[in-house]
C-alpha cells in the first residue's frame, strides 16, 4: 500500500514537472522542472528495486547533462515577446504531431500488449540479490558486443566533437610548464661587463 502511494507520488510529480517544463515562460525554470522530472523518474526506478539505474539516472542526467543544458540556457538571451508571437502559425502542425502521438499512446496502451498479464512483473527479490552485480553479469556476457559497439560510437562522437571545435589560436599565449621548469640559470642570466 505504501509502495502504491509512493508510485502515485513519484508518477504524479513527474507528470506535473513535465507540464512545468513546457508551460513555464522562463527557460531557466523549464530546466529546473526537467530536473525535478528526472528525480521522480529515478524514484520510480527505486520502487522497482533498480537502485543502480535510479542512481545512474541522477548521476548522468541530473549531474552532467542538465548542468550543460543550464549552462547553455543561462548564456542565451531569450526574447520573451518574440517567443510568444506566431504561435498560431505553428499550431496546426504542432497540434497534429501532438494528436498523432496521443493516438499512438492510447492505441498502444489499449492494445493489450502491455497488460499486466503479458508483461513480466517485477517482484521484490531478497536483499542478497544485488542488481548492480546482475546488470554487470548480463552486460558483460550476453550483451558484450552491443555494449562495445555503443562504447565505440560514443568514443567517435567524443573525438568528433573535439576535432570540430578545436582551433588553435595563433595570437594566444600558452604556458609550457616543462619548458618553464627545465629552465636553467644560464638561459636567463647573462653577465654584463661594466
Amino acid at each position, binding site marked *: 500500500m505504501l509502495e502504491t502511494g509512493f508510485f502515485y507520488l513519484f508518477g504524479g510529480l513527474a507528470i506535473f514537472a513535465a507540464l512545468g517544463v513546457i508551460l513555464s515562460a522562463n527557460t*531557466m525554470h523549464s530546466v*529546473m522542472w526537467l*530536473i525535478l522530472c528526472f528525480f521522480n523518474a529515478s524514484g520510480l526506478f527505486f520502487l522497482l528495486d533498480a*537502485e*543502480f539505474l535510479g*542512481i*545512474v539516472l*541522477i*548521476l548522468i542526467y*541530473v*549531474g*552532467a547533462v542538465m*548542468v*550543460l543544458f*543550464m*549552462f547553455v540556457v*543561462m548564456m542565451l538571451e531569450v526574447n520573451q515577446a518574440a517567443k510568444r508571437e506566431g504561435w498560431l502559425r505553428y499550431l496546426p502542425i504542432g497540434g497534429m504531431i501532438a494528436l498523432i502521438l496521443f493516438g499512438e499512446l492510447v492505441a498502444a496502451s489499449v492494445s493489450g500488449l502491455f497488460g499486466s498479464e503479458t508483461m513480466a512483473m517485477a517482484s521484490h527479490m531478497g536483499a542478497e540479490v*544485488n542488481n*548492480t552485480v546482475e546488470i554487470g553479469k548480463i552486460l558483460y556476457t550476453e550483451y558484450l558486443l552491443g555494449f562495445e559497439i555503443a562504447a565505440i560510437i560514443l568514443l567517435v562522437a567524443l573525438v568528433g566533437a573535439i576535432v570540430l571545435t578545436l582551433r588553435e589560436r595563433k595570437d594566444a599565449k600558452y*604556458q609550457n*610548464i616543462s619548458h618553464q621548469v627545465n629552465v636553467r640559470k644560464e638561459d636567463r642570466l647573462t653577465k654584463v661587463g661594466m
Partner: protein
Amino acid sequence: MDLFDMILQGLIWALEILAIVVPVALGVAYTTYAERRVIGWMQVRQGCNRVGPFGLLQPLADGLKLFLKETIIPTTANKFLFVAAPVMALMPALLAFAVVPFGETTLFGLWETAHVMSIANLNVGVLYVMAISSLSIYGILMAGWASNSKYALIGAIRSTSQMISYEISMGLSIVCVLILAGSLGLSDIVYAQQGGLGHWYFIPLFPMFIVFFIAGAAETNRSPFDLPEGEAELVAGFFVEYSGMWFATFSLAEYAAMILVSLMTSILFLGGWYPPFEFLDFIPGTVWLLAKTSFLIFVFIWFRATFPRYRYDQLMRLGWKVFLPWTLAWIAVIGICTYAGELSDSLSFLSDGIGFYQPWR
C-alpha cells in the same frame, strides 16, 4: 505494521538523521575555528582568541551575528531562485552523509552482531555519493544566475566548468578502488581494507589517492582552486549578492562538502574505521575514522595557507591533461594486473600481488 510501529520507526529515523546533522553542523562551526587558528599559527599570528577560552566560543558568536543580520535581496534578482539557491547548495552536502559508514557498533553489547553505523547501508553507496555531490553545482549555478549580477554569473560559470572537469577524474579514480574492492558499497570497501596499514588502498593506488584528494579540493571550491570566489577579480564570486544567514548557508555547504570529501578519502583509501596496526584495536573504530578525517581537513587548511591560487588555464590543464590521463592509465594498470595471471603463468606474480588487495578473488 500498525500505526504505533510506524510512528516508532519514524522517530528512530528522525533521531538517526539528527545524530548526523547536528555533529556535522557543529563540525562545520569548529572547522572554521580550526581554520582560523591553524592559518594564524602558520602565519605566525594569533588567530581568534578573544571570545571564550582560546576563542572557543567564536564560531557561536559568528553564527549569532550572521543570524541577526538583515538578508538583502537585490531588486532585479529572481526572488524565488535567489532564496532557493543556498538551500539547493546545502541539501546535497547533507544528503550525502546518509550513506557514510561511521564505524561498526554492537550498541554497547545490545546486539549480537556488529552493525554498520550509517543511516542507509546502500549497496550502491559510492555512486550515491557521486550523484548527490554532483548536485551541489545547481546551488552555485542558481545563485549566480538569480543574483542578476555579472560577478556572480562569472563565478557560477567558473565553478561549474571546474566541477564538471574534476568530477571526471574523481569518478575514474574511484573506479580503481572499485576494481580492488569488488563492490560499490562503502562498508564493503572498508571491510576489504581490513588488516592494518599494509592493506589500505592508498598503497597500490597512491597516485589515485592524490588525484582524488586534490580533485576533492577542486570540487568543494577550496583553496588553491577557489577561483569561483576569487576576491581579487570577482569580489566574492557566486555569492557576492548574499548576506546574513543565506551567506552563512553557502559556507555551511562548502565546509560540509569539505568534511565529506575528507571522510570519503579516509573510507576509500585510508582503511575507514580500521586502525593502522592490529594492536591498536582497543580504540573504537569511529575514533580512528574521525581522526583520519580530521587530519585530512587539516591538510585542506594547510593547502590554503601554503599555495597561491591557480590561474584558470592552469586549473583546466591540471584537470584534463594531468589527472585524466593518470587515472585512465592507472585503471589500465590495475585491470591488466588483475587478469595478467590468466594470460600466462610468467605474469602471475602481478595478479598475485594485486590479489593481496582483492578479497573477492
